[in-house]
């Protein structure tokens, strides 16, 4: 059965691109969220197998959303995504329970490889 992924990014452009990459690879898109608050809410609703989580977002940052998601579901598999400049936050993300970190712009092969590794534990 296809793995369900939830995509979180405040940019429609980024979500669309990521969605196309993931659908091409056979993933099912569980839902999409455009800010941190929405991400936490939707996570609880759709309980995806994987989450791609942007860091710089309105209302609640990706790091804050990650902490809440992990508090709700310690088994959550979350991959952080961000553009250059936010590397300083990788440590904070890893400490909060992120499984991996993908740098934007998205490289399709890299995205699918990282997600596969995270999915396989």
């Amino acid at each position, binding site marked *: 059965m296809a793995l369900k992924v939830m995509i979180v990014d*405040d940019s429609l452009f980024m979500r669309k691109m990521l969605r196309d990459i993931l659908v091409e690879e056979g993933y099912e898109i569980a839902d999409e969220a455009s800010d941190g608050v929405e991400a936490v809410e939707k996570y609880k609703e759709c309980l995806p197998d994987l989450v791609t989580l942007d860091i710089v977002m309105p209302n609640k940052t990706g790091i804050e959303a990650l902490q809440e998601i992990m508090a709700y579901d310690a088994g959550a598999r979350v991959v952080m995504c961000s553009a250059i400049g936010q590397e300083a936050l990788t440590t904070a993300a890893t400490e909060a329970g992120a499984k991996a970190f993908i740098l*934007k712009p998205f490289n399709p092969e890299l995205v699918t490889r990282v997600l596969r590794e995270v999915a396989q534990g």
Partner: protein
Amino acid sequence: MDMSQYKALFLSESREYLRTIAEQVVALEQSPGERSAVDALFRGAHSLKGMAASMEYGDVVVVAHSMEDLMARVRDGAVPFDAGVADLLLEGVDLIDVLLQDVEQERPSTLPTGDYAQRLAIYTPAPPKAAPADQAETQVSAVEAVPSPAPTTPAAAADIAPPPAAEAEKAKEPAGEAGGTVRVKTELLDHLINLTGELVTNKQRLLTIAGELASPALNDAISETAKLLRSLHDEVMKVRLMPFEAISDRFQRSVRSVAKKSGKEIHFELTGREIGLDRGMLEQLVDPLNHILRNAVDHGIEESGERERGGKPARGTVRLAVTRDRDRIQITVRDDGRGMEPATMIAAAIAKGILTPEEGELLSPRQALMLSCIPGFSTAKEVTDISGRGVGMDAVNAAIQKLGGTLGIESEPGVGTTITLRLPLTIAIIHALVVQVGQVKAAIPVNAVQRTVELSRRQIETMGKRQMFQLDDEAIPLLSLNRVLGLPLGRFPDGILPLFVTEARGRRVGIVVDRLLGQHELFVKQLGRPLSKMAGVAGGATLGDGEIVAILDLAGLL
């Protein structure tokens, strides 16, 4: 991965971010400590950078990245948000805007980003008090009218109108995915308008036929259809409406930049940003309004020293207000500057050879102010310096007339000037006076017609080479439309000359035609090339009987 499929989305979302950034900069200038605006600015630049990197648009990445870094320094308290930061960010917005146009046109970048990134990287705030005189602090603030309600019709919401600044957060999420709204291509809307216009024309045809048949039942049915058509027309037109705010941020920025350049302190107020205008009209209002605002700041408002000597506050005020009065839109630009002196305007026009001294004496103060709209008058440097206004006002006036609107000037020396634009709600359907000249029919938009007159030959006076007649104690020269259009002159065997009165080059003129055929509701069609190049013709339309008329642009013709 084929990225070309994402180009349109990239462009539309990037432009939304640019708008958000520009709005937040202006918001921050008014309340510099606003944390959420600082964050929103940072995120805007960050998201732009990420998207541009995905599309591999290196120049955009460089500019957005340096904006993001500067905002990070502001966020972390290393740099205060001051006028220098605001300038740099707005410069970045303009740079990216041009770069996006290049991307859209698929042409190599036309604008070198130069040392932009470097200037941001080394930016340090100017020490307080040390600002040289020509860098006088400019304060631009916007006073909001009642907060605008969201567009009420789903179709209007589908527009790409930017949200009010207060809702800037929502701009992150392009409209269109929320429940109850859909994105619609503008061509589809234009097509709907076209069809509605054709129906209006067809109704006119039915009316003509019904008139011939004299059937009451048919008349009833047609008048019912006419009512329905009017509602349909109104609804379809609403779809075309976009809030004025879609263009208003540009005005704040241009006032800001002119004020800065001329070293003046300006308080800029904007009200009515929520008022909806025809989308086709909005774009065409940008240049004229920019012109008027620039004139107000550059020529209208005095230097602060002069103002204080005149007992005025050192800081000048320019107000841009948009209001709607049933089916008209009114836009006023009011300044509290030095105003214009009618006598000075007349003297300048006489000096330029535009008026004879005798003609000058006949002008009312209102007409004297309108002299600034005459080509040739306004470009004269020495005149604008004296009159305090006038650069390019002829172009502004022509643009407003083309939109079916009128321009009025009121001014009180020493107190200020108010320019009022009155515009129709839509530019697609107009009311026009249809006239017969020679073998052809022509239509004149009613906004250009002050009144119609049937003049007896006896009332015509000859003054020099000119034929004139008296109207409201004013001598009005006569012109033949036949002559203007190069058609055979009318004969008028019963001694009655039909004419309409219009305003040309700042004064009233009587235009004689062969016959006045009455007022019609016309659906304006733009002319294709090469006809669109013809001066004096604004478009075409079909009359109820199927006959084609040219819609005349009198400002271009006379």
